[in-house]
C-alpha cells in the first residue's frame, strides 16, 4: 500500500468540465487513481457518473480539462486507440455472435493469431466459469452469465483501466451480492485498475478501495469506505451512505490534551472524544449519530453520562436486528439494536434510555 503511493498514478483527471449544449454536466472533477486500485463513483442518478466514464473512454470529448492515462495525455485519442475498456450498463453484448466470439472480438480486431485467440478465450471463459457456454448465443444466457461475458470481453486485452458502468444494476438482489464479490476478487487478483460506477452506496462501500461521492456534476468527498461512513464531509454524504440521526448542538469546551469535548444540546450535555481537527470551541455543530452506534436500554431511573431518556414509539423485531423508534423531546431517533436479547421486555416498554457513544462525528453547521 505504502509503496504504491509513490508510484505514478495510472489515471489522472484534471479539472474536467463537460457541457452538453449550455448544460454543464461535469463541473470540475479532479482525481488520481492508483495502479491496481478500485475507485467507485457513487451518487444519485443523473449526477454525471456515466458521462464521466464516457469521457474517460473517449466516447465524448471533454469541454475542458485533461485526462492522463499512465503518464500520457489522451484527450484527443478516439476510443479505439485508448487503452481503456468499458462495460456498459446494458452489457452491449453482440447479439449476433456466440459467447466465445464476443469474448474474442477484441482479439480478432487486434489481429491476434487464431490459436492464441482460442487459448485466450478459453482462459477468460474459465476465469468467469463459462467454459461450457462458449458456443451459446447471447440471448440464451441468464443476466448473470451475460454480465460475466461482458466482464471477460472487457478484460480480454488487459486494458490499463477498466471502466464499469453500474455492472450489477440489471441483476436481482442475491445475484448482485455474489457478482460483486466475484468482480472484486478477480480485480484484486489481476490487479487491474478499475473505475466502478454505481448509484448504490452499499455496493460502493463493499467493493471499493476508495469512494468518490458525486452530486450534480461535482465531487463531494473522496475517501475510503470507512472514512466516508464514519467521517462524512457534509449532511448530504452522511445521509447518502446510510441512515443517520442528526442532533444539533454547540461545543461548550474542548480539552486540549484528552480531546474530551462537551456539547450542549437541548436535551442536555453530551460528552465525546473529538477525533477531528476542524471543530473549535463555541462552534454550532451537527452530531452524526448512526442508528447502530446507539445503545438502548430499559429506563431504570438513574441518569448517567450521555444518556437521554425517551419514549419508545415502535419496536420492530426482525431476528438479528430490532429497529426502534424513540421519541426524545419532539425529535424522533431511529436505533438499530443488533442481536436483541431483551426483545420481550422492550415489546411492552414505554420509557427507554438511549446511550450516545463517545465517538460521534461532528459537522460544522453553517449559519
Amino acid at each position, binding site marked *: 500500500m505504502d509503496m504504491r503511493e509513490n508510484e505514478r498514478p495510472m489515471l489522472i483527471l484534471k479539472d474536467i468540465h463537460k457541457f452538453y449544449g449550455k448544460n454543464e454536466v461535469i463541473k470540475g472533477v479532479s482525481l488520481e487513481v492508483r495502479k491496481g486500485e478500485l475507485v467507485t463513483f457513487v451518487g444519485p442518478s443523473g449526477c454525471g457518473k456515466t458521462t464521466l466514464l464516457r469521457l474517460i473512454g473517449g*466516447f*465524448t470529448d471533454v469541454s475542458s480539462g485533461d485526462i492522463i492515462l499512465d503518464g500520457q495525455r489522451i484527450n484527443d485519442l478516439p476510443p479505439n486507440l485508448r487503452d481503456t475498456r468499458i462495460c*456498459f450498463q*446494458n452489457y452491449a453484448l*453482440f447479439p449476433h455472435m456466440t459467447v466465445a466470439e464476443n469474448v474474442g472480438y477484441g482479439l480478432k*480486431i*487486434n489481429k491476434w493469431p487464431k490459436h492464441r485467440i482460442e487459448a485466450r478465450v478459453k482462459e477468460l471463459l474459465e476465469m468467469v466459469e463459462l467454459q461450457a457456454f462458449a458456443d451459446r448465443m447471447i440471448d440464451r444466457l441468464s443476466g448473470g452469465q451475460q454480465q460475466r461475458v461482458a466482464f471477460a470481453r472487457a478484460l480480454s*486485452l488487459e486494458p490499463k483501466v477498466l471502466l464499469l458502468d453500474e455492472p450489477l444494476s440489471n441483476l436481482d438482489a442475491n445475484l448482485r451480492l455474489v457478482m460483486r464479490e466475484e468482480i472484486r476478487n478477480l480485480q484484486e487478483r489481476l490487479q487491474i485498475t478499475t473505475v466502478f460506477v454505481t448509484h448504490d452506496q452499499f455496493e460502493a462501500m463493499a467493493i471499493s478501495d476508495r469512494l468518490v461521492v458525486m452530486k450534480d456534476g461535482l465531487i463531494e468527498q473522496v475517501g475510503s469506505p470507512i472514512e466516508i461512513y464514519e467521517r462524512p464531509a457534509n449532511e448530504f454524504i452522511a445521509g447518502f451512505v446510510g441512515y443517520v440521526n442528526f442532533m444539533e448542538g454547540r461545543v461548550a469546551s474542548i480539552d486540549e490534551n484528552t480531546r474530551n469535548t462537551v456539547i450542549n444540546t437541548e436535551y442536555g450535555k453530551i460528552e465525546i472524544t473529538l477525533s477531528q481537527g476542524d471543530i473549535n470551541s463555541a462552534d454550532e455543530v451537527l452530531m452524526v449519530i448512526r442508528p447502530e452506534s446507539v445503545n438502548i436500554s430499559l429506563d431504570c431511573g438513574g441518569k448517567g453520562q450521555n444518556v437521554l431518556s425517551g419514549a419508545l414509539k415502535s419496536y420492530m423485531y426482525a431476528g438479528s436486528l430490532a429497529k426502534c423508534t424513540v421519541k426524545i423531546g419532539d425529535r424522533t431517533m431511529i436505533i438499530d439494536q443488533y442481536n436483541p436479547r431483551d426483545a420481550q421486555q422492550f415489546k411492552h416498554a414505554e420509557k427507554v434510555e438511549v446511550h450516545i457513544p463517545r465517538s460521534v462525528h461532528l459537522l460544522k453547521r453553517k449559519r
Partner: protein
Amino acid sequence: MAPAELSVKLQASSGSKIRDFLNANLINILAAFLFLLLAFFLLYPIIAVLIKSLRGPSGFTLEYYRSFFSKNYYFQSLFNTLLLGVINTVVCLVIGFCLAYMTTRGPWILRKPLKIIALIPLIAPPYLFALSLIILFGRNGIVTRMFDLHWQLYGFNGVVISQTLAFIPLAYMMIENTLMSLNPNLEESAYDMGASEATILRTITIPLLAPGLLKAALLIFVMTIAEFGNAAILGGRTPFLAPDTYTMITGESDFNMGSVLSVILIAPCIIIFFIHNYLLEGKKFTTIGGKPVASEPRKITPLIQAPFIIITTVAAGAIFICFAVVFVASFYKILGVTHNVVLSNYLDFTSNQAIYNSIRVSFVAAVIGAFIGVLLAYVIVRGKFFGRTFIEMVSLSGFALPGTVVGIGYLLAFSAPPLKLTGGIMILALNCVFRFLAVGVEAGISKLHQINIEIEEASADLGASFLTTFYRIVLPIMFPAFIAGFIYTFMTAIVSLSAVVFLVSPGFALASVKIFDAAVYGEVGIASATTMKLVLIVTICMLILNFIRNKTRLGGSMKKSAAV
C-alpha cells in the same frame, strides 16, 4: 371482463332484450360490417381481376397466360420490371443507408439539414422527378439542347433515375428507424475494443441491421415494380408491366390480357407481403434494457467519410435540382424553348378545374377513410373475435397492392350492377380509401394502445352502454388519429395516379391525370405549374400533420410528468 359484457349485466334489468343484445355484440357487428366493406371494396376487385384473367368467351382457360409466356414482348416487360425493381432497391438502400447513417451517427450540424433533404421528396408527387428529367434531358430538354446531348432519357435509364429519387424518402425512413433502434453502445463497444469505423460497420452495424434492411428492401421492391407514373412517362419503347397494363386496357380494351399482366404484377407483391409479415416477424436482434439515447457523433475517419459524403451530396443535390427545375419551368410555356416568364400556366382553366376536382375527390376519400380507419383500429385492438388478425392484415395490405391492379379491379367489379359506380366521383374516392387505409389504421392502433382499457371498463362499470363509452371516451382520444388518417388519406389521394388513371371519365379531369397527360404530350409548363400546386397542398397537409403529432406528443409527456 370486456366492457360490453359488463354493461349487459348492469342493464339486464332495465333494457329490452334487443338493446342488450346490440350492446353486447355491437363491436362484433361493427367488425362484421367493416369486414364486408373490406371484402367488397378491396378483396372482390382483386378477385375479379384474377377471374377475368382465367375466363375466356367459353369459360375457364389458361390461354391468356400461355399467350403471356409465349410472347417475347411480355417476357421482356416482366424482365424489365423485375430488373428495375432490383436496381432501384439496391440504389435506394445504399443512398438511404448513407443518409440515415449521417443523420444518426454523423456530426450534429449535418443531421437536421440532411434529414430534411432526405424527406423532401415526400411532398412531391412521385412523377415530379419524371417531369423534371424531361425538362432537363428530354427531346427538348435544357441540357439536351445546350450540350447537343445524344443520351437517351426515355427508356430504362430515365425510369431508374426518377424512381430512385422518388423512393429515397421511404428507404431513408425505414433505415433510419432501424438505426435508431440499434443500441449505440454496441457499436461503441466495438470501437472501444479497437475496431475502426469501417470494421464497426462491417462486423456490427450492418449484420445487426440486416433484418431491417431486408424488410426495407422487400417493401421498396414491391413499391417500385408497381409504380406506374414514372415508367409510363419515361418508359418510351421499353416495356414495363404497369404501363403495359394501362395500354392494354385503355388502348386495346383487352381486359383479359390486362388482367393477366395484373396478376403477374401482383404475384411478387403478395409473396413479398407474406414474407414481410410472417417470415420476418420478430426477426430482430434484441438487447437488454437501458434507455436508447441518440448516438453521439463518431469521429469518422476521412476515408470512410468520403463515400458517405459523395453519395449524400449527389442524392441531396439531385433532389434539390429536380424541385428547382420544376419550379422554374412552371413560369415558362416550355422552359428552354420559349423565353418569356408567364403566369398563364398557373391560371390555366382546365388545370385549375382538375385541381378542384382532385380536392373534391380527395376530401370525400379522406372523410370516409378516416372514419373507417378509426373504426377498424378500434375493432382490431379491442375486439375479441376470431379473424381479427386477418382483418388487420387485409386493412394494412392495401398499400402493397399495385395501383394499376386496383384500378382494373374497380373497372371490372363496379362497371355493372349490382353496384355500378363507374363514371362517378365515388369510384375515384373509394379506391383511394381502401388503398391508403394502412396509415390511418396504424395511427389509430397506436393511439388505442396508449389508452388503458381500464378507462373504458370504468366507464362501462358506471353503467354506460357500449355506444356511450365509444362516443364519450374512445372518440375523443382517437381524435388525433382520426385527423392524421384524414390528412394522410387526403394528401396521398390527391397525388395518386396509378389507379385513378383507369377510372376517370372523360370530362372529369383529375390533377394527377392532367399532369400525366401534359407530361406525355410535352406541355411542360402546365404540368409543372399543376405539380407545384400539388406540392403546395401536400406541404400544407404535412405541416398540419406535424403540428398534430407534436401536440399529441406533448400531451403524452405532460400526462407522464403529472403522474410522477
